[in-house]
Each structure stands twice: as structure tokens, then as C-alpha cells.
């Protein structure tokens, strides 16, 4: 298969890559760009561990072709902290015990960010419904809810 030259904008920076058409955005982020925060836990769209933001919206990078992600703003977990300062959600996740094994954390935090960006003061139900696509086997979601609620009302 011939490789195509594509340009992706990831975390505010442009990069040029040559790749085959079937490569997913998840593979390219992890294997070509070394951004291993987004993870694969299922590969078929059920777990949410591969969630990244495209133009601010949470999408599953394991089912998105890299060539189709051109011309869009892609945000990964590595792009969340700015100038060495953690994003309030990252701080809250750590402070409220919302991370155990950490494998689901990247996708969970990014999806939570998109929820808060849409609605700065969501209800508990809205948060839980919004996060239904991010599976976590460790935490039972309790501390995750605490962390997102805390970040939403600006608790530090």
C-alpha cells in the first residue's frame, strides 16, 4: 500500500507524517508521535480509553483514520497541562483519589474536560451520563465523580 503524506495538528503543533490509509489516529499518536497517553483497551469502540478531543469533542481515536483527522485540532492528554501547570481536572483527579491503575485516566480526563467545556456546572447525572463511554474497572467511578464535581465548581 502506498503511503500518503498528511499533516496533523496535535496539541497546537503541526506535524507531517507519511502513512498508509488504514492507520488509525490512535496508532499514529502512540507509535509515530510517541504520545502514549491515549490507550487501547478494546479496539472496537466500547471502552473509551482511546478518547482524544477533535475540535473540542471527545471521539474514539481507535476508530478514526489518521488521514481523516487532518485539518482539525487534536488534543491529547499530553496537551492538557500548560507551561508545566496541571489542568484543574488533572489536579482534581489526583487530589480526590480518582486514579488507581491509571489506564483509563487519559480518556476519562479528556472526556470530562469536554463535558465541563460544554457545561461548566453539570449535575451529577449529567457527568455520569457523559462519562458512560469511559470504562473503569478500578474505581467504581465514585472518586471520578468527586473529582469532576470539584473541578466544575472551581474547588482547588
Amino acid at each position, binding site marked *: 500500500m502506498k503511503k500518503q503524506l498528511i499533516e496533523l495538528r496535535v496539541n497546537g503543533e503541526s506535524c507531517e507524517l507519511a502513512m498508509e490509509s488504514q492507520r488509525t489516529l490512535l*496508532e499514529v499518536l502512540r507509535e509515530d508521535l510517541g504520545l502514549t497517553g491515549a490507550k487501547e483497551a478494546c479496539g472496537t469502540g466500547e471502552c*473509551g480509553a482511546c478518547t482524544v478531543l477533535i475540535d473540542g469533542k471527545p471521539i*474514539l481515536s481507535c476508530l478514526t483514520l489518521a488521514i481523516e483527522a487532518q485539518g482539525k485540532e487534536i488534543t491529547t492528554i499530553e496537551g492538557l497541562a500548560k507551561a508545566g501547570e496541571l489542568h484543574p481536572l488533572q489536579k482534581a483527579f489526583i487530589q480526590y483519589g480518582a486514579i488507581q491503575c491509571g489506564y483509563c485516566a487519559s480518556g476519562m480526563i479528556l472526556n470530562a474536560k469536554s463535558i465541563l467545556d460544554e457545561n461548566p456546572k453539570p449535575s451529577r447525572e449529567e457527568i455520569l451520563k457523559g462519562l458512560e463511554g469511559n470504562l473503569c474497572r478500578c474505581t467504581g467511578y465514585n472518586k471520578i465523580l468527586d473529582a469532576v464535581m470539584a473541578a466544575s465548581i472551581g474547588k482547588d
Partner: protein
Amino acid sequence: MRIPKFEYFRPLSIEDGCSLLYKHKTEAKILAGGTDLFVKMKKKEILPRVVISLNGVQKLDRIEWDDREGLKIGPLVTHDALVNHPIVREKFDFLSEACFKIGTRQVRNMGTLVGNLCNASPSSDASAPLLVLETKLKLVHLYGERTIPLQEFFIGPFQTALDPQEIVVEVQIPKPAPSTAGSYQYLHKASSVGETLVGAAVLLTMDPKDSTCQEARIGLSSVASTPIRAKTAERILKGKRLEEKIIREAAQVASDETQPRSRPWYRREMTRILVERAILQAMEKIR
């Protein structure tokens, strides 16, 4: 899991898309959201040599309302767009609810309604509301076009009447009659996310003068090899005053019209319960 290799095209118009389909025929598949296509390819259930993305064609994500013709939905409209669209929420609230139930936040951002219909899962949530709304699909191919009722579009589990050379370009939902409301009730297979165990949509048009039911439509998903209309049950309701006894009878008949393959006893029981609840909720909305 890797997606098997393929040749990729990104046409700039529907016509170009049709040309490509004409050229590659059954070796090609259309890409819209990708949430069904790539899962099937990863599992090796289908292995198209060619993938034709519609995402390069302009204006396929329109949702348009016309006071005579009703709602028109383009092939790249996502479930998320439908959930939030003011016209859909106002005039077809139970369709909006059904779309909100589908998948997860991420899947709703990616998956298109048309893609979902073309996937033709027997448990597709949007299908039951669309069936009771007597939805039609407009299909085009290189040398022409046709319009087909959604009812005829589903021909088997994951099988549609779509020709390999056709592209669905529009979902057409006719304007509902006055004094009409719909309800969508569902149960999950397990826990709170994922496939629907039973989905029941009911559309009722009531005569405001004598409170009889002028029109009744019952759509069911996940209880047969395709989403179905429970036509015998519908006839029980039509023209009658909807008292408890009639409603229960119709719900039971609807349940008898199902042919569930797995967990059949439970699915039939739940069909009965959900159809009843849907009828009652639709009636409530009309008041």
C-alpha cells in the same frame, strides 16, 4: 487491533462517490462515521478493498425542516447533532431521546444516523421511532435515484435493500398530523450502557373531540431479525377509545408479534410492558 489494509478515496461530490461505487462495486464500502465499518473490518467480518469517505463532500450534515414536507436529514448528520437540534427536540422529541440513548458520548459524536440505519442492527434504537414516523430514505446511484420506506429498507439482520452502488443521501420524516405524540421506551441488556434488550416506540394521533385514537403505530427493535412494526396490535388501537383493557390487549398482541432469538421469554414479557408504557406516555404527551 489493526484495521486491514485498503485503498482510500475521498470524493468531493456525491456524484464522484457514485462513480467510485460504480467502478468498484462490492469491493467498496462507504465511510461516514466509521464506528460500525471499522469494527467490522477489525473483526474481519467484512474486508473491502476500497473505502470511500463521504467526509470530503460539503453540506451532507444538514438538518432541514419544511412546513409541508417535514424533516430532511443528511447522511453525515451525527446522533449528537440530532439530539441537540431544536427542531428535532420540538417536533420529534422521542426520536431525540432515542438518539441520546444510542452508544456513548463519543460514539454519538462520530456515528451518523444514516450509518446506523445502513448497519441495520436489529437492536438499533433510532429505528423504532423512525419506523413509526413512516420515514423514507432517498438513495442515489450513478444513473438515478429512488425513495424507499424504511420499513422496506431493513430486510434481515444487518442486511438492507441498499444496492452496493447506492448511497443514502437523505432521511425524510413526514410532518406529523396535529394532535400527535410519540414515546420511546427501552430496557438495556445489562447494566446501563450498550445494546438495547427491547425498544418500543409508539406514535399516536388522537381525535381531540372524542378522545379516540385516529392513528396508532408501534415500532419494536431487538425482538426480531429486523426492527418491525406491530401492525396487528396497531389495528386494535385504531379508532378506539384507549382504555386500560384495550391498551393491555394491544400490548399483548404486540408481544405476540415478536420473534426474539435470545432470552425470548423475557423479551416478550418486556415488549408487553414497554409497549404499554409507551402508549400511556404518548397519550400523556398529547393531553
